[in-house]
């Protein structure tokens, strides 16, 4: 069977044909095109004539889009907003999802119930989740400020206050994602050999010490993985912003994907939007590359 490799190439191509069509149509060609279009001033209103040289001649403007973007305050501000989101979201998400994993690790009565409960937000679409949270965070009639008032805190105007809007989006995102990452961490916890805990127990280590000296180090590969994934995903922040604030108030929640969408589909500057989307790709690529490099240094894979 392992002989006659060439004879199998034809068979293999038949099996690969559908995914290959998809690969070209969905990934390869659009990816190359977005690079090409990022050097044009194409608006998107006039049809696209990819194969006509005059289309490229008329619209080609070199690096102008990139230069404009990098010089615009808006681009850097939108990255700053993503950074704000990360700084708030990632620690909150890590702590709550680790907590969920620790809770669900030991099988007890009710574990299955809580597992499902914690997972419901994950099953919810982003749009529904964002709509729900928009209403939860309503300054006057929302339930969160009502709860806060009951414990003696006067809640902020959340999404209507430029200072609090991003934090509101973070709350919704943590709510939506903690079950997802919680179950990933749970998988990691289940992989730790109980022998370590027994040994630590015999040596007189307390619970907290065991957690600090065994659980956390053994879980680092997973924490690291989740950290990078959530970092990269933070750059994709979009539905929450579209639904909850529409980038407002006063542009306080403008982020990069939202800018790509608006430039492409509201302002009809497809060339500019393509350049933005290529910068997004470069940023994400950089983080993925860093992950591959740093993984070897930081992480303990003996678990």
């Amino acid at each position, binding site marked *: *069977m392992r002989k006659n*490799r060439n004879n*199998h*190439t034809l*068979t*293999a*191509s038949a*099996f*690969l044909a*559908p*995914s290959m069509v*998809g*690969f070209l*149509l*969905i*990934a*390869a060609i*659009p*990816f190359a*095109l*977005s690079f090409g*279009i990022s050097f044009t001033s194409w608006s998107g209103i006039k049809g*696209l004539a990819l194969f006509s040289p005059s289309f490229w001649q008329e619209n080609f403007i070199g690096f102008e889009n990139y230069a404009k973007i990098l010089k615009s305050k808006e681009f850097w501000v939108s990255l700053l907003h993503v950074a704000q989101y990360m700084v708030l979201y990632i620690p909150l998400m890590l702590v709550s999802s680790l*907590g969920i994993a620790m*809770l669900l690790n*030991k099988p007890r009565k*009710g574990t299955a119930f*809580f597992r499902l*409960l*914690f997972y*419901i937000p994950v*099953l*919810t*679409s*982003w*749009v*529904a989740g964002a*709509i*729900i949270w*928009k*209403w*939860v965070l309503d300054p*006057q*009639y*929302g*339930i*969160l400020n009502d709860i806060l008032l009951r414990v003696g805190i006067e809640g902020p105007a959340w999404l209507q206050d430029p200072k609090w809007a991003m934090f509101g989006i973070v709350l919704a995102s943590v*709510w939506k994602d903690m079950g997802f990452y919680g179950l990933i961490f749970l998988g990691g916890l289940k992989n730790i050999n109980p022998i370590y805990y027994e040994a630590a127990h015999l040596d007189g280590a307390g619970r907290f010490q065991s957690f600090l000296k065994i659980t956390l180090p053994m879980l680092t590969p997973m924490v690291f993985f989740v950290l990078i994934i959530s970092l*990269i995903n933070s750059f994709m922040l*979009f539905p929450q912003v579209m639904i909850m604030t529409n980038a407002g108030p006063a542009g306080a929640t403008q982020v990069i*994907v939202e800018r*790509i*969408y608006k430039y*492409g589909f509201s302002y009809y500057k*497809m060339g500019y939007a*393509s350049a933005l*989307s290529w910068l*997004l*790709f470069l940023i994400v690529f950089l983080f*993925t590359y860093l992950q591959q490099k740093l993984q070897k240094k930081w992480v303990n894979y003996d678990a």
Partner: protein
Amino acid sequence: MMRNRNKSLSNLWFYVFASGIGFLIVIPLYWMIITALKTQTAIFTYPIEWFPKEITLQNFLDLFARFPFGKVLLNSTIVSVSYSAISIVTCCMAAFAFAKIPFRGSEALLKVYLATLMIPFQSTLIPLFMLFNSAGLSNTYGSVIIPSLFRVFGIFLLVQHMRTIPDDYIDAARIDGASYFTILWKVILPLSLPVIAGYAVITFMDAWNDYLWPLVMLTKPEMMTVPVALGMVNGQFERNFGVQMAGSLISIVPVVLIYLAAQSKMKDGLTLGGIKG
């Protein structure tokens, strides 16, 4: 004695903390449900009503009256089912070729496929829209179903699984004169059913909940999928939270039900995949 006390204490902490997190998770969901059932005036009553005094289905009726939400649910069902079905077929075929058919360049091609995971979908959004739009696919089911042809996640998942199936099965079938197609259909697929089932559930949910791509392709209300429609309802009925919560509630229910059904089935499914003898 001491041990028992420790155990019940740890159980107590579990219930305290689990209920605490559960409370935080449930509050928004509870808020959605009671708002969907409240009257317009009750929704904007201050201080807020934690327990609605009067329950009404008016918000649901309004949603269907003011927006073609029935058609929207149908659209989402058609799109999500076709999307998962096609994606399963193409992923199985590709994964089988990578895992079980020896051909030149197999490794390299798989690497190229996997490399596309590094390209955020958002980076290809604009040219993809242009291509589909100029092919006349705007406001068609096809526009949101076609991307199912290429799902690297599924291919990767199935390659990983199919590699664990011993080659002996295939060699035996080859000696009996079976074609690769027969081998895939009769040998590999039955052994991969649990993985395929799990993948089907995940893919259905992804398709059901997808937002950005349907948002740019589906602009007519009667062609929209549920998330796009909800987004539009959110824009149109800015302060009508009753209608918005009703729509959100309807959008969540099918996914939770499918997840529950899948979870109860998965347990038997996992043992089916084992190799006996």
